[in-house]
């Protein structure tokens, strides 16, 4: 039966699954490569196992896979369904986000040991690193949503872009501010033109661009599509800017200071654990914020329909 369904779905579908899973695995591998060895091993082992399982399952039970994918597409792509499902998930996500963030921040600020070089001023990383990572991830998510919105004309994807942009902008701003606060005791200056901070500044401007474009266009549907195109172009730019600024910084050897002193020094596990908690907490905060904003946007866009009137009444 399975081979039947595969032949029915056609060779292109087969290639789609293979290429998608391979692409994702390659992306995850490349992304994870720069992490500390323990984290790297865990992520890669887990990621590749999941990928292989997914691929195997897609070949073995393609019918179920396609049905499920189609069901998700219709459910998540339809604003009323998304509203309902997001509403169910939200309380749990809020709880998880709160727990992770509170535990991580308290542990990091109060209980983690002081750094051997920087003393207690390093603790800002519990704010800075999660914010930076969230800002970057949010833009990538926005870019993916943009691609979906353009190719499949999915309204939900446009709403996602509108929901993510302000969060990403705030995270980028927090990253810049916390980076500046860190800079003062560490390098003696509030701002330094190093690769990371400069890339984050550019990312912040790109977020502002998406927000400004959406505000400038009167028709929300047109604004959504315009923002989608800009996000896709921007994601490509994010990658190129990162390498450009790295190269640019290598031209000016003086300011190539890594966040933790000499490059290549690993973070001690007792400092790493609360950092990971903060990072995951921020990712869940991202999910919560985006879902809440998306739900609000759905209510506004569909405000004339019957289901919204019932909901609000």
């Amino acid at each position, binding site marked *: 039966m399975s081979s039947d369904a595969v032949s029915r779905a056609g060779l292109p579908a087969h290639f789609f699954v293979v290429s998608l899973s391979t692409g994702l695995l390659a992306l995850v591998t490349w992304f994870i490569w720069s992490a500390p060895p323990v984290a790297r091993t865990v992520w890669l082992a887990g990621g590749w196992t999941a990928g292989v399982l997914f691929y195997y399952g897609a070949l073995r039970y393609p019918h179920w896979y396609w049905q499920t994918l189609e069901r998700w597409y219709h459910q998540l792509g339809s604003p009323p369904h998304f509203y309902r499902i997001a509403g169910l998930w939200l309380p749990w996500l809020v709880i998880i986000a709160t727990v992770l963030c509170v535990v991580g921040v308290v542990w990091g600020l109060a209980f983690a040991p002081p750094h051997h070089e920087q003393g207690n001023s390093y603790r800002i990383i519990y704010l800075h690193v999660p914010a930076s990572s969230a800002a970057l991830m949010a833009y990538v998510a926005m870019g993916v949503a943009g691609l979906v919105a353009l190719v499949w004309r999915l309204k939900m994807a446009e709403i996602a872009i509108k929901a993510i942009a302000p969060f990403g902008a705030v995270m980028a701003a927090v990253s810049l501010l916390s980076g500046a606060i860190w800079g003062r005791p560490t390098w003696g200056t509030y701002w330094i033109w190093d690769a990371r901070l400069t890339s984050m500044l550019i990312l912040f401007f790109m977020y502002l661009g998406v927000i400004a474009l959406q505000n400038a266009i*009167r*028709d929300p*549907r*047109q604004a959504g599509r315009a923002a989608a195109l800009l996000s896709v172009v921007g994601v490509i730019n994010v990658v190129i800017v990162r390498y450009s600024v790295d190269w640019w910084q290598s031209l000016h050897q003086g300011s190539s200071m890594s966040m933790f002193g000499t490059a290549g020094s690993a973070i001690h596990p007792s400092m790493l654990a609360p950092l990971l908690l903060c990072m995951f907490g921020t990712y869940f905060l991202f999910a919560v914020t985006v879902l809440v904003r998306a739900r609000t946007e759905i209510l506004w866009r569909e405000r004339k329909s019957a289901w919204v009137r019932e909901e609000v009444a």
Partner: protein
Amino acid sequence: MSEHPLLTVEALACERDDRLLFRDLAFTARGGDIWQVAGPNGAGKTTLLRILAGLFGFYEGTLSWHQDLVLRQAMLYLGHRPGLREELSPLENLTWLSALHGQRDDNALLAALAAVGLAGFEDLPVAHLSAGQKRRVALARLWLPGKPIWILDEPFTAIDAEGIALVEQRLRHHAEQGGLVIYTSHHRLAADTRQILLGRGAARVQP
């Protein structure tokens, strides 16, 4: 007259600026038809035409052209504005527009300009023409061959009575040859012109 429906529209609805323009619009257009889209200002006439021309995409309902038709090759769309660059002459404007449609016949362009009464004005920059003459330059494309479907937004504005009669005659000629004309105006061509009446969120098709 051809009997194959060139255009089938079902349950077309459009909302713009938080206002419902029209809803449940359904009609079938065939070769040889002339359709007038009428209604008060702001009723959605231009939007409807842009939807039909493929320029505006935010609508609900289905819009299907005949399967053998490639819309962009078969359609002549004349918008609200003349669509001309003022620095260029009528001939230069039309040469470029024709080139976009794969036509490169200078003689046909000169003949078209002559047909709208602009013989002798071909090489003057459009900026030096009156509003009526500018509109005539745009309308000259009605005298170029090869486009069975005409979608015209306010073709009768800014031209004098003689020009109106000229264009009317041209539209009728086109329909007699089996072409389709959909235009907006307050001006009804004949008692048997089919009408789409828009206004206050409703759409009526007559007959």
